[in-house]
Structure formats: C-alpha cells, structure tokens
C-alpha cells in the first residue's frame, strides 16, 4: 500500500458503517481521494459500492464513522448538501428526464431565471459551453434528452454535475452502457476533468479500464475496505482479484450428491438467441443436476432464464422439457410443463406482498385445491403449513402477510410455491440476494434437496462462489455469450473472473 502525503486529501472516509433492516451493507469503509486523481473502486456485486456512493451523495446517512471534506468533518444530510459541498454523482441508471431538453435537464433544480421567468438563451449559452468542454459541442441544447443515445445521456448527466461548482464527481460504472468508441471519449472527458483539478471516483468491474485511466484503487468486499489507495501502476491484477474474492465469511454448502450417469436430460436449451441480449445459448440439464450460470450483472444471465421460462420471447432457438418443445414466450405453457422460476426481484416479481403467506405459496396452484372454481382455503392453509414446517419458514403463521417477512423467508415462500406445484425444472435467479448469511445455508440445503428430488436446476447468482459451490456444471457467460461450459470442480472464482473479464474486453 502506497501513501503519499504531499497534499491534504480532498475527501477522507473513515470507518463508515451502514445497515438496512438488519442487513449490514457497510461494515467499516475507509477511502481517501485526492484532488485531480481518478480513484477507482473495485468490488463484486454486494460489496457495498452502491451504498458507499449513496452515502457520499447524501442519499443514505452513515450509522457510524466520519466523512472529512477539505479537512473538515461534514455531515451530508441530503443530495442538495452533497452538491453544495461540491460532490456530484452520476448513477448507473441515469437520472435525466427524457421529456426535457438538454439545457432544461442541466439546469433542473437550479433554473436560471429572473423575476420568475426562465432565461432560456442564457441557459442555452451556458449549456453549449459545458457540452463543448465535454467534447460534445455538436449537441444542441434544445435537443430532447429522450432522443439521445445512452452515451450522450451520460454526457448530459456529466454536464449537469459540472453546472454546479464541483470538486468531486462519482461515476457508477459509466462504461457499462457504452461501446468501445464511446468509452474512449469518456476517458478523454475524465482526463479533461482531472486536469482541471476535479477528482473522479470511478466504479467499474473492468480491470483493463482501471489500468487505462486509474491513478489509485480501493477494494471493497462484503462491506469492508480490503485495501485503500493502492497505486494502479504497482498492483498486479492477481492481487486485485485476490482482494476482491478472499472470503471473510465462509459460505456453507451442503455436500453434492453426484448425478447418476444414466440420469435423463430434462431441460434442453438449443441455440436460444435474443438480439442484443444473448446469442446462441445451448445447454442441457439432467434430472438431479444443478447448472450454474456465472457472469456479471448485465451479461444476460437473468434474461436467459426468463427466456427459458417464457417470460421473454426469444427470436431463435428452442426450449424442451422432457423432450417436448415449449411454446416460445408463454409462461402459462412453461408452468404447465413443470417449469418454475424464482425471479431476481423477489418483491416486485415474485410476491403479492399484501397477501398472506399461504396465498403466496399457492399462487401457482390454488386452482388445484378448488372445486368447481370455489377455493378450498383450509386445504391451502394446510399445504402451506406443511411447507412452513418443512422449510423452517418463520414466523410459522400462514396468515402473516408476505411483506412482513425477512428476505430469506420470502425466498422460502417462492421455493415452497414450486414444491407445492411440483416441478421438473427449477430456474433460480439470485436465490440468496438480500438473504442474511445464516439463512443462506438453509436455502442452499433446500436447493440441493430439490435437485436430489429429480429436478433439473438452473441457478444464476452474482456471487460466483455460490454458483461454484452449488452447481455441478458451470456456464461462464459474458456479453450474452457462453464462453465456456465445464464441471464446477474444474474452475475456481479466480478462473471465472479471469474468463469473464477477458471475454468482456474482447
């Protein structure tokens, strides 16, 4: 670790912690950013990067620790306070208003006006100057933002930051939506900013980008700082990956039962393609087998699961369950064929939150308990209660609204739903997201049990060790393509990240 003390740092973060409803997102983060540098923050999904950014942007308030700005301890109460200090943030999902023009977006919230009338020409002139500074003098201030490409929207977002007097700009994975040429321009803009003395906090998954523009790196893992202010030039890639992946908390995986050699293929995916999302995906899953899709967010993993399930309609390719080809883009048919999905966003896609546990458990199968269209809630409750006991779902009250349950127990509802319905193929998207470490072990045991019962299981997770620990076979995915298919025992986390990062760069 290199520390040079010539200038007092612009921003110092010491021991910041933050918990949300019992989930500890930040467990002690340190950061030191100097004026005019590009400071990269590296970390896996769930490492706490987003929470850290939002803490600096005034969206979240830290539970503990301090933030020192220009030598003074500050409290960033809200986003306006952050802007007033000179901290601007460019979020991944850009916060521009599509219906307004570029100039209107840039001065949104601090409109130039005199006596209540907006000064449109003045705003346009200033906008032109800002765009020119960002190397986009060709854009007209009067263009509607909704008509711009993602790259140009990013420019607008950046111009908006610069319209305030800022000293630090935080960029959350700005290159994720850009093509190679646009990334080049982004880097050009970044160096423009730093030469004007503005500090850039740059968040990315892509190591080669850090090599190109980064000055120093801080690494986060599980909400903790693993390293602060490493010099980009002096730190080998392998050391960075080790810092990112070294596990503080051991994941607990149940023992794998080998899939019998004569086990039949249950799920057959052939040449599945959806333009711009994923391309030519083929694999098969046998009864009792767990196949894991490993890849970064945005690699197309979730979309592949949704296409298999019929929730998205692929352009090409076929999905067959037990030899019978499913109708493309029909969830109803997939469910009837015995396919179950536990979706990525449990709350918005999985549960009817106001409804009680038992109705959520039987959401796919309540018609089966009905006679002539009339529900049999007593049987539904009894069936749900069986699952509650079998899965250790807490609280064990079938009438409790799903809303009041923890993430782990909500996940158990979704698994119980498919246990009650009966499946041959189970698609699990991020089954442990938002689930605390203790409850994860339960989920892992359940997934194994479901496989052992003869299900073909496909699992997607941002946590590579989870994929490796659960799956029998791993598909490494980047940019919607399957880079490699191999037994989970033949690859480790390091290897997967290596493949993914090379694949993304290509």
């Amino acid at each position, binding site marked *: 670790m290199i520390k040079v003390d010539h200038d007092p740092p612009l921003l110092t973060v010491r021991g910041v912690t933050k918990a949300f409803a019992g989930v500890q997102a930040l467990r002690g983060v340190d950061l030191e950013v100097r004026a005019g540098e590009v400071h990269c923050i590296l970390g896996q999904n769930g490492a706490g990067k987003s929470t850290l950014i939002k803490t600096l942007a005034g969206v979240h308030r830290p539970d503990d620790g301090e933030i020192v700005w220009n030598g003074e301890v500050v409290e960033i109460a809200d986003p306006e306070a952050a802007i007033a200090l000179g901290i601007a943030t460019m979020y991944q999902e850009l916060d521009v208003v599509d219906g307004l023009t570029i100039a209107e977006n840039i001065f949104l919230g601090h409109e130039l006006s005199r006596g209540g009338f907006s000064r449109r020409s003045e705003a346009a002139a200033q906008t032109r100057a800002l765009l020119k500074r960002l190397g986009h003098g060709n854009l007209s201030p009067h263009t509607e933002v909704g008509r711009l490409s993602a790259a140009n929207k990013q420019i607008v977002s950046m111009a908006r930051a610069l319209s305030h007097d800022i000293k630090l700009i935080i960029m959350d994975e700005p290159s994720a939506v850009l093509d190679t040429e646009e990334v080049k321009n982004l880097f050009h803009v970044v160096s423009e900013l730093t030469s004007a003395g503005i500090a850039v906090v740059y968040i990315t998954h892509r190591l080669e980008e850090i090599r190109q523009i980064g000055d120093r790196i801080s690494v986060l893992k599980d909400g903790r700082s693993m390293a602060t202010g490493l010099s980009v030039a002096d730190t080998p890639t392998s050391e960075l990956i080790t810092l990112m992946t070294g596990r503080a908390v051991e994941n607990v995986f149940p023992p794998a039962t080998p899939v019998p050699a004569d086990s039949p293929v249950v799920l057959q995916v052939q040449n599945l393609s959806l333009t711009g999302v994923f391309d030519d995906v083929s694999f098969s899953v046998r009864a009792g087998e767990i196949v894991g899709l490993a890849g970064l967010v945005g690699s197309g993993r979730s979309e592949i699961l949704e296409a298999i399930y019929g929730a998205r309609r692929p352009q090409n390719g076929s999905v067959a369950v037990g030899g019978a080809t499913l109708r493309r883009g029909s969830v109803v048919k997939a469910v009837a064929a015995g396919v179950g999905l536990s979706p990525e966003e449990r709350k918005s896609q999985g549960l*009817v939150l106001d*409804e009680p546990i038992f109705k959520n458990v039987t959401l796919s199968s309540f018609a089966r308990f009905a006679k002539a269209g009339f529900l049999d809630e007593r049987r539904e409750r009894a069936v749900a209660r069986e699952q509650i006991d079998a899965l*250790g779902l807490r609280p064990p009250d079938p009438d409790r609204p799903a809303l009041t349950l923890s993430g782990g127990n909500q996940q158990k509802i979704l698994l119980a739903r498919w246990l009650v*319905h009966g499946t041959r193929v189970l698609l699990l998207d991020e089954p442990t997201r938002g689930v605390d470490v203790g409850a994860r072990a339960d989920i892992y045991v359940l997934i194994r049990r479901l496989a052992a019962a003869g299900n073909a299981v496909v699992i997607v997770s941002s946590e590579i060790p989870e994929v490796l620990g659960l799956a029998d076979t791993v598909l490494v995915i980047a940019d919607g393509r399957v880079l490699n298919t191999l037994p989970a025992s033949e690859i480790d986390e390091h290897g997967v990240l290596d493949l993914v990062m090379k694949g993304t760069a290509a």
Partner: protein
Amino acid sequence: MSEQTTRVETASADAAPPGPPAEKKSGFRRILSGPVGRNLGLVIALLLIVLVGAITAGDTFTSINNVLTILRQASIIGVVSIGMTLVIISGGIDLSVGAVVGLASVVATLAAVQDFVDQTHWIFLVIVAIAVGVGAGLINGIVIAYGKVVAFMATLAMLVAARGLAEIIANRRTLVLEDRGFINFMNADIIGVDMLIWIFALVAVAGWLLLNRTTFGRRTVAIGGNREAARLAGIDVKRHIMWIYAISGLTAGIAAVMILGRTTAGTSTHGTLWELDAIAAVVVGGTLLAGGRGTITGTVFGVLIFQTLNNVFVQNNLSSSVQAVAKGVIIVVAVLLQQRFAKPTGRGD
C-alpha cells in the same frame, strides 16, 4: 467443491423448529379484524348520516317506506358498483359502465317492440340487455388486455362510442316499453321488499362469493396486488383481465334491465355519469384505486352512504347542488382517512 466447507448445520434462527405460535389476538382485535370491524369507519359514517336524518326529518325519514326508498334508489347504481369493485381491485378502471347501461336499455327496448318478441317471453329482453353489456365489456377487456391500451383510455372511448351508438339507435327519442309482464315482474315485491332490492342483494352476494371464495377472485386480487408476480406464477393475466371487464359489462347489463323495469323506457341518457358515482362508492368503500385490495361489503356501504345522504337532503328540501358539495367533501375525507389508516397488513374480506 472440495475446498468449500461442507457444514450443513441449520443453526440460523430461520431454521429453528417452529416455536410458539404468534400471539393470540385479543377479543377487541378480533372484532376489529372481522367484517364489521374492517368497515367500522363506514358503519360509523352511515350511522351518523342516519342520525342526522332522524333528527332533522324525524318519522318521515325513519319510516319503513323511506328505508325501502333509499334501498331502491341505491340498488341500480349498487349493481354497477359491484362490477366496478372487481375492476378496481384488479388494478383497472371502467369509465364506460354508465354509457353501456344507456346502450343496453335502448337496444333491449327496441328488441322488445319487435313483433316476434311480443309473441315470445319478456326474458328475451333481459337476455338482450345483458348480452349488450357483456359484449361491450368483452370489447373493453380485449382492447385493454391484448391491445395493451390503458384502461382509462379504452373505457373512455367505449363511453363516448356507446353513448353515441345509443343515440343513433334510439334516434334521440325515448323508447317506451309496454311489456306488462316485464314491468309487473320488475315492480313486484317479495315479502314487502322491492324486486330491485332483491336483485341488488343477489348481485352483491354473488360478487362477494366471486371475490372471496373462487379462483377467479384470487386471481383478481393477485393481479391487482402484483401483476408481474401473478404472471410469473403462471396465471394467464391477459385472459383474466378480459373477463373482469366482461363482468363489469354484465353488471351494467343487469343495471340496464333494472332501470328499464323502473322507468319503463329505454333512452340513451340512462346511466349518465354513473361511472363516477360507482367509482366514488367503491373508493369510499375502502377499495384501493391502485388495486390489490378492496371489499364488496365496503362498496355496499359506500353506495348506501351516498344514497342515504341524498335522502336526508331531499327530506330537508335542500338543493341537489348542496348535496353535490357534500358528496365531494365525503369523497375527499374518505380517501384521506384511507391513507391515514390503510395498513399494509390489511386484507380484503
């Protein structure tokens, strides 16, 4: 993987064996969570209005005859509101109900004066009115579910078109119905209670059963509560939404039959602005405009509150303008109270 620890202790609190069940509800809480308690605010509001009526209008207000008048006046809009309740719980809205009542009344009257109907039974007229209602509802449903048109716009278009079509068919005249059999049946009473009130009661009970006891109702609440979750659970959301609007059309058709019985005439102006009365009754009855939660019982109370209020005003010779202002105030107060007290744990009964 070999280097992963393979400890499978279920040590977490999540996995602990079931402990003591959740705390027993106290008697008071049980009353509050019962069907009466959940509508307690509505019961109180209705009682207050009744009290005001009894004080200001005395015996004329509290007479059996007056109670029956209130119920009779509530019955037709009440039937429409039952269908509207299902639509709103599913997360939609149906602005076309009033216009569909007008259209169905005109078409049915016209059908009734045809010679061959004269010689058949008046039940044919009922079937025609209901068919027109269901047909219009199905069109709404198909346009909304499969055409992906926002419910507000699709049913607004139906409102305008159905009203226009009714005017064309009726040629802007009031068509008089002369089928004595039908008129006698609709104006008969059973044990002293009007036929219209019985029909309302029947539709309300059917609506309650449909919402609370059938797979149809379960799907409706699930779709209104979280449409994406319902879809991903394997529910055919589009088909279901289509049928929900068909049911709203069905209740509009039944309402058309009722108003034909009461006025013995079909006209394109029947049901004007009923969509707003129905929506007001549903929302005042505690159904969330956003969908996912609502009750038939609440809607019945909502309808009764407005009709009783109406009656109190008439008894006191107050103008309908004053009444409209009071109605507006009630709607706002009801929605404010809903926001204040609506708890996420609440459920439809």
